[in-house]
């Protein structure tokens, strides 16, 4: 078992780089006398092959979408097309400085303009910014727009955002970063909004509501038109967390549901890779009356030329340049490959796959809600659990060569286990996965210790998280200096 750290490669004078020849003489002694570093660093000295081998070996300790089914609910772990990677590696895209003149970046501007146009058609929104680098960053940006809207109308009392308790943690966290007070409302058991609790908190202090639809239980918010109408009547705006758009892509436009602002997760719905936790991209779209608040600049077309357009009422920049541009390139390639004839089949098949799993497993696992789900299905642990928890089931899945579903989220379902197969998976893959989950349920009944002791086959076993938090060893220096 490969078990080295990069710091274990430390042979003096061995190098893993080369640089152009030095051609200019410069005496840096005066400069270093004033600004020079004295503190030493522990960095490796490794040959190029040693570095390559080290990270190749680390990669072998990982599980990706191409390793096997990755049914991580709420994360939409679909296939990430190879051609999109090749396209985003074109030198014309990668070798371009963000501050070049408009004439030097026409290709990049066209990419962003085209992507904006297509996302506008898909969502019904009137404008997009690509500055946000992930979903949560998009939430923050969208909330800033909501805040700016109310302030511009001199409606200063609106300091509260309504969020159902079934929401993802980033929703309340983004509201707080944006300086809003969070009003959490209890959902119905199916995660859907309780209309009377909504009504009871609506007043002239409410800036808006944040919702994802389908909600985090995979249920479509049937009353969505009533909900958005109520919020609008109370003077608030409606924010759509697009994390779950894979259920509705090409079938329901967020504006038709009454939403005013949204973010999309290009790394979920639009097939860009998750990269072990980013880079993602969280473009924000909004309805016409809010476009003037988007971060500057937005890109406009004049003839066949693209230009920047700046608004005086913009909320300002939320990131350094144009966001994660190369991720946007991949998302546009994903959309263009599918095209208008296939885009709605993404959500159709994602929903079909989730319902297929739901029906097949409801005799073995406690179905949270017995209704057709959308792109993901939530169970609440094994039926006749026999002491076996959702965590145990998740760990046992690793033994069988699967990534685990999202577990213990949403918070409102006990022992939650959230399965999102995505449209990428074939019926055969789902059948095999279902068979394994049924087998684990059987193991739980007949030999619970086998499940409780899982995983058995992974390179490391269950990890002591309490120790990690109690004795934080966060760097190599701390690790080598720590003695029991």
């Amino acid at each position, binding site marked *: 078992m490969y078990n080295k*750290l990069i710091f274990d490669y430390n042979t003096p004078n061995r190098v893993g780089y080369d*640089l*152009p020849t*030095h051609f200019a003489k410069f005496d*840096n002694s005066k400069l270093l006398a004033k600004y*020079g*570093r004295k*503190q030493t660093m522990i*960095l*490796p*000295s490794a040959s190029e092959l040693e*570095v390559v081998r080290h990270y190749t070996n*680390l990669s072998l*300790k990982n*599980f990706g*979408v191409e390793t096997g089914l990755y049914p991580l609910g709420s994360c939409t*772990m*679909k296939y990430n097309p190879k051609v999109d990677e090749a*396209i985003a590696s074109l030198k*014309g*895209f*990668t*070798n*371009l*400085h963000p*501050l*070049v*003149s408009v004439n030097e970046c*026409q290709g990049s501007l*066209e990419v962003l303009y085209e992507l904006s146009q297509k996302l506008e*058609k898909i969502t019904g929104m009137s404008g997009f910014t690509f500055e946000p*680098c992930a979903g949560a960053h998009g939430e923050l940006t969208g909330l800033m727009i909501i805040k700016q809207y109310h302030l511009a109308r001199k409606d200063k009392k609106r300091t509260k955002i309504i969020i159902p308790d079934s929401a993802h943690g980033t929703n309340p966290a983004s*509201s*707080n970063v944006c*300086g809003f007070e969070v009003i959490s409302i209890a959902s119905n058991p199916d995660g859907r909004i309780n209309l009377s609790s909504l009504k009871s908190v609506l007043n002239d202090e409410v800036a808006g509501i944040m919702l994802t639809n389908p909600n985090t239980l995979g249920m479509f918010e049937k009353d969505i038109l009533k909900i958005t109408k109520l919020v609008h009547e109370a003077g608030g705006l409606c924010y759509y967390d697009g994390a779950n758009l894979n259920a509705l892509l090409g079938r329901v*436009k967020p504006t038709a549901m009454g939403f005013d602002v949204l973010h999309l997760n290009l790394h979920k719905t639009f097939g860009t890779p998750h*990269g*072990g*936790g*980013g880079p993602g991209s969280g473009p924000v779209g909004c309805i016409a009356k809010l476009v003037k608040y988007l971060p500057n600049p937005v890109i406009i077309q004049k003839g066949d030329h693209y230009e920047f357009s700046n608004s005086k009422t913009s*909320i300002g*920049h*939320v990131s350094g*340049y144009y966001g994660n*541009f*190369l*991720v946007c*390139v991949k998302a546009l390639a994903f959309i263009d490959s599918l*095209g*208008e*004839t296939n885009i709605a089949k993404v959500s159709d098949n994602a929903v079909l796959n989730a*319902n297929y799993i739901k029906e097949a497993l409801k005799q073995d696992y406690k179905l949270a809600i017995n209704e*057709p789900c959308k792109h993901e299905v939530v169970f609440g642990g094994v039926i006749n659990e026999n002491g076996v928890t959702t965590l145990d089931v998740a760990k046992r899945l690793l033994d069988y060569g699967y990534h*685990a579903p*999202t577990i213990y989220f949403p918070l409102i379902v006990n022992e939650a286990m959230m399965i999102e197969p995505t449209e990428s998976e*074939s019926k055969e893959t789902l059948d095999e996965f279902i068979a394994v989950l049924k087998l684990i349920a059987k193991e739980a009944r007949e030999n619970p210790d086998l499940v409780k002791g899982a995983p058995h086959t992974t390179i*490391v076993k269950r990890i002591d*998280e309490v120790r990690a938090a109690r004795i*934080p060893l966060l760097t190599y220096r701390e*690790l080598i200096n720590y003695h029991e």
Partner: protein
Amino acid sequence: MHKYLPQTESDIQNMLKSIGVKDIKALFKDVPESIYLTKEIKIGKPLSEDELFKHFEVLANKNKTNICLLGGGVYDHYVPSVIPALVARQEFLTSYTPYQPEISQGTLQYIFEYQSFISELTGLEVSNASLYDGATATAEAMLLACGATRKDKIAISSALNPRLIDVIKTYASKRNIKVIEIELIKGRTSLKAFNKINDGSLAGVIIQTPNYFGLLEDATPFSAAIKENKGLSIVAVNPLSLGLFKSPLEMGIDVAVGDGQSLGIPMGFGGPYIGFMATNKTYMRKLPGRIVGSSLDSEGKRAFVLTLQAREQHIRREKATSNICSNESLMALWVTIYLACLGNKGLVDIGNLNLENAHYAYKKIISLPHFKKVYDADFFNEFVVETDLSLKTIDRVLLKNGYTSGIHVGPHQIMFAITERRSQAEIDHLVELLGGIKHV
């Protein structure tokens, strides 16, 4: 049929039968009929892979990638080929946040190594697993300082990159945080001006080195002064310069931030890059974002795991230290491999190469008749010069000859970034071109 959609018509029929519904639409029966689309959204016909690739090649070729003299926070640096090759491995590329540590030791270990590298570079004890970019990292540092001190005023150097200032102000305004810009003297933050406002009301002070004008700044007197008033000192640094120049720790800094782009990340028209943040143990539990720690598995083997999660949004919701969830993990791997290749020797070597090349160009340019210096020469790889020539003409002449001109930092001032990638021939030609421009 589409290669990304495996379900055949007969699969779909079989699956519908198992579910017990007649068609897929029946699974959407809870969607109001009035908003359910049955017609296609007109976003264009599907493109085959070859058509798709050609289409994007045309777009990529519409960009003009010239010899780049632009800097201002993003630099044209050498990218070792091993990095894109390794980072493209699907086990890294297509995985997600390491929620299942038993099958994510690859990601967890490289984040641990990344945190170690950032800690070594900055000298500070702890680093998080990454933030979106240098600008958001700086804004997060401001929020950290305000949270830690329970104050709502922050002083920033006017020599911060304007992009950093923009993002700081955007974040600050929504939280009613007051941002005060410290005046400059000869291109650097004025300590005298800072002392006038350092009255105990400040949550912190933010200095950048090298600053926006390329000049090195020693943040030591600022960190000492703010400490007396119980505020936090924050520095935004170019990590590539840290092989040569004082570490944030040596300057007495509480929080170091910056953008990892200079560590071998392609310019990519603005991203993806990576924001880093490091601090001391005192503020460890106030850090935004993910953190990886080393622990043991049930058999006593070393194993890495996400830790100190009680700060994070999925547990603390609105009370979390930040809203960040997905960060820039793959770019942390990028930077980690870069630093693994360079090591100590390489970091010093590339630092010197940047210094030498930039000073070589600087001396030649300021000795041209229409150019002169603006500040002293204590810079790293970027410098401002003054000229009585039209900046537009300079841009045009350079562009015609295959260069992307520098940043206009004033009506008569232009800033050039000269990295290790600029050869003697490229610089000599640049000087020749600049020397040949006449008044119009």
